[in-house]
């Protein structure tokens, strides 16, 4: 697959939120305001890309060579958890500005299944390092796009008259469903 195809596929056609159901928790949790959505989007992009590259290297340099593929899940999740901690510490020291922008979202990212999901899928698809990076960036941008789109909708829904039992998460899920139909329209692109 060409890099362009991978990019388009992960952003639009197989959008990780609307078609692959990864990263739904933060998608519901932080999508009520445009501003928090943007902060989360940037933090996820950063961590997913970094985690994909590192797990790719670990898988090919260590696990495959030693025949330890069955430790994949446990190793990847530990790498991601440590990476998130490390990024948090590093940002605090190096760039307080950036830290204040995305610091609060970082702890939430360990349990964002998109980070682990993208890392595992990259290996399953047999991507090389460049394809892995492309897919990770595309996946994060797709997540970012989904988050910002739904945040914009939720800001409008706040002032709409919604039945009591549907207010909050239920109506957000239904809106996400309608959005997912729209994204299904990209199916033939790649």
């Amino acid at each position: 697959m060409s890099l362009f195809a991978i990019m388009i596929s992960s952003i639009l056609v197989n959008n990780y939120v609307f078609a692959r159901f990864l990263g739904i928790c933060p998608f519901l949790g932080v999508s009520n305001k445009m501003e928090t959505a943007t902060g989360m989007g940037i933090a996820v992009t950063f961590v997913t890309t970094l985690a994909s590259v590192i797990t790719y290297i670990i898988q090919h340099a260590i696990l495959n060579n030693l025949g330890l593929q069955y430790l994949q899940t446990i190793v990847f999740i530990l790498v991601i958890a440590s990476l998130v901690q490390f990024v948090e510490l590093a940002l605090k020291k190096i760039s307080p500005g950036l830290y204040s922008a995305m610091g609060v979202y970082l702890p939430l990212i360990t349990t964002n299944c998109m980070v682990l999901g993208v890392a595992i899928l990259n290996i399953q698809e047999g991507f090389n390092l460049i394809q892995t990076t492309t897919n990770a960036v595309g996946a994060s941008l797709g997540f970012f796009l989904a988050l910002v789109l739904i945040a914009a909708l939720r800001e409008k829904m706040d002032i709409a008259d919604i039945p009591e039992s549907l207010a909050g998460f239920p109506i957000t899920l239904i809106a996400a469903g309608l959005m997912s139909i729209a994204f299904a329209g990209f199916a033939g692109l790649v």
Partner: protein
Amino acid sequence: MKISTLFKNGIIKENPVLVQLIGICSVLAITNTVENSLGMSAAVIAVLTLSNIVISLMRKFIPAKIRIPIFIVVIATFVTMVQMFMNAYAQPLYKSLGIFIPLIVVNCLILARAESFASKNGVFVSAMDGIAMGLGYSVAVVALGTVREILGSGSFLGMSLFGESFQPISLFVAPAGAFIVLGLLIGLFNAFVKKRITD
């Protein structure tokens, strides 16, 4: 703590999917058929109960500072075991659940029970809590799977229900259907069940 309270909490009052809305990714992804829903439920109950038991056993020896990494290692171990057994003995299910089996690791439900329950309670109660919460997950997932399979494929557990002439509404097995049906299900739960508990 009474066991019946645990089950009432897990299945109704604090239902992980319908009330707490945690672990939604796998809920949306694997409910396109009832069979997948049942398979995923079994995997979640197994991992949740076993990790609750082990963490409860270890609770006195785990240093507070590194408890989260240790919980993650324990959970990941059980997830990998479930993954291996499924691959060996339940191949079709393993294939259709795909990446969502390893992703049980990051299902916030399991880590949340480890942190808020198993690390503070005895082994037996923790095991019961695992089963109760797992059943709460299963109830929601199987309900969702039933609605989606009947409307989207016109079948239940793979058996055709309406004969050849029925044209299923394939939207319901598509990703969009997952979001919409779950939204409506939570709405219904809010309207009928939750109200009655709080009254």
